[in-house]
């Protein structure tokens, strides 16, 4: 079976200075347990690629205030005031990227595609310095594929091979991130026998997943809360 790890043991696969792909849209579909372990670890100087930096004091927001982050790359940080503050003080680098460009660039990173031309952002500040190409009369900008050293993602269930399924809109960036890092650690609520998922049901086939850890949070009132 796919190697199941204690959350603490998963930390051996992450090094200071690594680029991490972290799943989630706000807090939904975020690997909260793995993030807590990172907060308590000695890793620092991390670059995080994630749509947001969680919320203030929650999810990736914790990692930020713990001083573990060198840089964040994503689409929307405005609502986390800690992120705005850290950036203003020069304590955090931020690279903004349109949400769809981010999703596509990560998919390309996993797909052996070096880069692509998108319409999104052409003619805007975010296109400054980027190569332009006119294709069939429309202007596109070049975006390079994104890869990570380690992806930490959140799924609903894994089977013993490592196949993953996701919970409703908690899917978000997790499946593409699972394809685009050297090491992929999936945090799940439950591990079931191989063969429990119909072949049509699998969203992330097991070949993308290296390690599985069990989520230590419990869901109450429709949101994950710490179990202790």
């Amino acid at each position, binding site marked *: 079976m796919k190697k199941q790890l204690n959350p603490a043991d998963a930390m051996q696969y992450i090094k200071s200075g690594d680029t991490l792909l972290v799943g989630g849209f706000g807090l*939904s579909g975020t690997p909260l347990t793995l993030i807590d372990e990172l907060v308590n670890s000695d890793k620092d100087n991390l670059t995080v690629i994630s749509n947001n930096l969680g919320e203030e004091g929650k999810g990736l927001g914790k990692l930020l205030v713990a001083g573990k982050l060198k840089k964040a790359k994503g689409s929307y940080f405005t609502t986390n005031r800690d992120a705005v503050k850290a950036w203003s003080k020069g304590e955090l680098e931020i690279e903004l990227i349109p949400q769809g460009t981010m999703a596509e660039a990560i998919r390309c990173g996993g797909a052996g595609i070096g880069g692509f031309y998108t319409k999104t952002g052409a003619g805007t500040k975010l296109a400054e310095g980027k190569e332009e190409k006119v294709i069939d009369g429309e202007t596109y900008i070049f975006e390079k594929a994104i890869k990570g050293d380690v992806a930490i993602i959140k799924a609903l269930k894994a089977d013993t091979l490592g196949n993953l399924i996701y919970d409703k809109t908690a899917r978000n960036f997790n499946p*593409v991130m699972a394809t685009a890092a050297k090491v992929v650690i999936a945090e799940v609520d439950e591990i079931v026998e191989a063969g429990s998922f119909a072949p049509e049901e699998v969203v992330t086939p097991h070949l993308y997943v290296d390690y599985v850890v069990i989520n230590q949070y419990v869901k109450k*009132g429709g949101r994950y809360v710490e179990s202790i």
Partner: protein
Amino acid sequence: MSLSDRIKIAKRVAKELKEGEIVNLGVGIPTIIPDYLDDKKVYLQSENGLLGMGPTPCDEDIDMDLISASKKPVSMDPGASLFDSSDSFLMIRGGHIDTAVLGALQVDESGEVANWAVPGETILGVGGAMDLVAGARRMIIASMHLSKDGSPKIVKKLSFPSSGTRKADMIVTEHAVFKFLEGKMYLIEMLSDISIEALREMTDAEFHVLEKNKMKTN
């Protein structure tokens, strides 16, 4: 920004949507449009990975793993589908959304939109705004006529950072409805009882007025 103005704008945009359309609604005024669709069925796409977004659930059904792009709890209509972020933006950027209804900080007289950044302020968020501007088949701007400080939002030329070269098709404010035809901005309908002259005063952009007999007034 009075509630009745917001409702007026939402109602007018709702009228514009066609039965069966695929619609993505931005933050702010657009989010209340579903309350004014009456019997018209449109399919709401949410860029975090859902087509067929339904109304806010009652408290006991709230699940924060079923949320809108504004991170609010939602429900799913029959026939809804779930997908990941890359497939969601494939839809958006690829021209599969019939109409995006977006707010704006500014729109210029060619229809170019600024809706993500304010000059001089910290710019740390763009979200899916530029993808929607680039990709939706029709872009309707739903916005108050003036910004909070009373300055015109509908301007000659953008002073705020552009969201993309793709132009809006229509603007709906509490006072008026404008359409863009062949690169020019036309007033097509009045929604309040101010005069066209008064409207011109609060609108920095030059606009043409659709021939009187074709234009609706309040």
